[in-house]
């Protein structure tokens, strides 16, 4: 694997390089409108630059090769003139390439803004170290809150209103679009549009403190119908406990400090410091992309969040094994 990557990279060519990747968080494995055009630009610029580098290397190697024969050293006017012409030519070529890049870049910058009407607006709030999401609909009843997992309909423009609530974060889902910072006191926007259904991972790209490394999010692009179903579910209050274990879990959740920071709509838990947990069991990951959501991971996370993600703002709440079991069952049931 390593050898393959090295082989691909050594030529500094983007085309084979792209073939080497194939993951879900990559600027070269692209499924969003602007990321696709960015990839074209990247390949083009990298290709031209690689060519330039190779030309320089050819000149360098030729110069080193040439110098092996012993010739007189005193500069003579004729040679100096030829050298001047060569250097001037190279500088002119540089200027031309640079100008072309500048114009290309300018054109591509304008293309960065995705054309067309925005069809969905989401407030994305960056917090240490998770993403708060608020879907804004045409009327107040259609708005809802969730966290760390953005669902969007395929082929639609989605406008993200980016707000940094504590420090600067940066929203970056490379397979869909370039990054944009979430700056406290300023409102930035980014429009994304997925061309293909899929799960795209993103990660905070601006250093934001202790757990910058664990501040991921997923963007799930799905057909409109699936998206509508999902959104309808999200608007609903949390599922009621169906059995004794989950009922105990809810009670524990409310009796312990948990409810002071988390909201579970439809229950008394209405804290706003941590992520909204109304449908936490239905999200693919917990703790900002750290684990796949399972009953086990929920239990592990609740039991000792500070060992798993040191420095995050969730304290370790002392729970008995029974309480932990019940609560993880309850949380997992919140689909």
């Amino acid at each position, binding site marked *: 694997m390593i050898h393959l990557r090295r082989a691909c990279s050594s030529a500094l060519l983007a085309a084979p390089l792209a073939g080497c990747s194939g993951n879900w968080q990559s600027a070269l494995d692209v499924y969003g409108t602007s990321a696709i055009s960015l990839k074209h630009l990247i390949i083009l610029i990298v290709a031209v630059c690689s060519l330039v580098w190779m030309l320089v290397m050819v000149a360098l190697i030729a110069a080193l090769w040439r110098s092996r024969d012993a010739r007189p050293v005193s500069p003579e006017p004729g040679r100096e003139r030829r050298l001047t012409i060569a250097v001037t030519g190279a500088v002119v070529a540089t200027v031309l390439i640079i100008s072309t890049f500048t114009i290309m870049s300018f054109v591509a910058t304008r293309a960065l803004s995705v054309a067309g009407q925005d069809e969905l607006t989401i407030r994305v709030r960056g917090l240490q170290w998770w993403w708060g999401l608020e879907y804004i609909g045409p009327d107040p009843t259609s708005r809802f809150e969730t966290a760390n997992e953005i669902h969007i309909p395929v082929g639609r423009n989605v406008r993200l209103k980016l707000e940094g609530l504590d420090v600067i974060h940066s929203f970056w889902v490379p397979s869909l679009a370039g990054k944009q910072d979430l700056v*406290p*006191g300023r409102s930035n926007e980014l429009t994304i549009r997925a061309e293909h259904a899929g799960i795209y991972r993103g990660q905070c790209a601006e250093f934001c403190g202790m757990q910058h490394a664990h501040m991921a999010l997923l963007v799930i692009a799905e057909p409109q119908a699936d998206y509508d179903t999902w959104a309808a579910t999200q608007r609903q209050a949390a599922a009621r406990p169906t059995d004794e274990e989950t009922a105990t879990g809810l009670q524990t959740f409310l*009796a*312990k*400090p948990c*409810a*002071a*920071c988390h909201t579970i709509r439809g229950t008394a838990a209405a804290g706003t*410091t941590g992520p909204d947990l109304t449908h936490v069991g239905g999200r693919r990951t917990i703790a900002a992309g750290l684990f796949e959501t399972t009953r086990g991971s929920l239990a592990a996370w609740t039991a*000792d969040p*500070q*060992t798993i993600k*040191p*420095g995050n*703002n969730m*304290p*370790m*709440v*002392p729970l008995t094994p029974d309480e932990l079991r019940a609560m993880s069952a309850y949380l997992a049931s919140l689909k």
Partner: protein
Amino acid sequence: MRLDPPIADALDKIALMPNRIGGAPPNVYFVLGRPYEVNAYNLSQGKRLYAWFGCKSCHGDGRGGSGPGFLDGWWSYGPEMVSIFASIRDGRPHGMPAFGDKMTTDQIWQLAGYVQTIGSYEGKTAAPSRNDEKQTRPAENRAPAKLLFDEGPTPVHRDQGPTP
């Protein structure tokens, strides 16, 4: 960041006087080196908890509101950490709710340390500085109690002055 459960348990066992004013923190508190008074991280976490747990709605920025203020040198239950800890954990008459079931021991200590810092007449080196929000009073590292209420009613309660 992560308090071992046995230590957290031990930190919870404060020895209060019968009137629930004053007392002694558990020995482990001193063994750890009074972390909630001198550690800047704990104090700044305390400041965040102050906002997150709605302390502002009664105590304002420390100058009080429907609840008492912390800046005037008037500590209803004394300025010791244990008293403040007990006030937060168990609540007090006339409206102070108990936070023992809403916060962990670690958090209560952090918050207590911060609350004590607000009312301190000496700016601690470790005290938090201003927040990125509207300014209402000098930040804790500048000893707002001294700046704002120097001529306040301190003499009345000299024995419960702001510096423990």
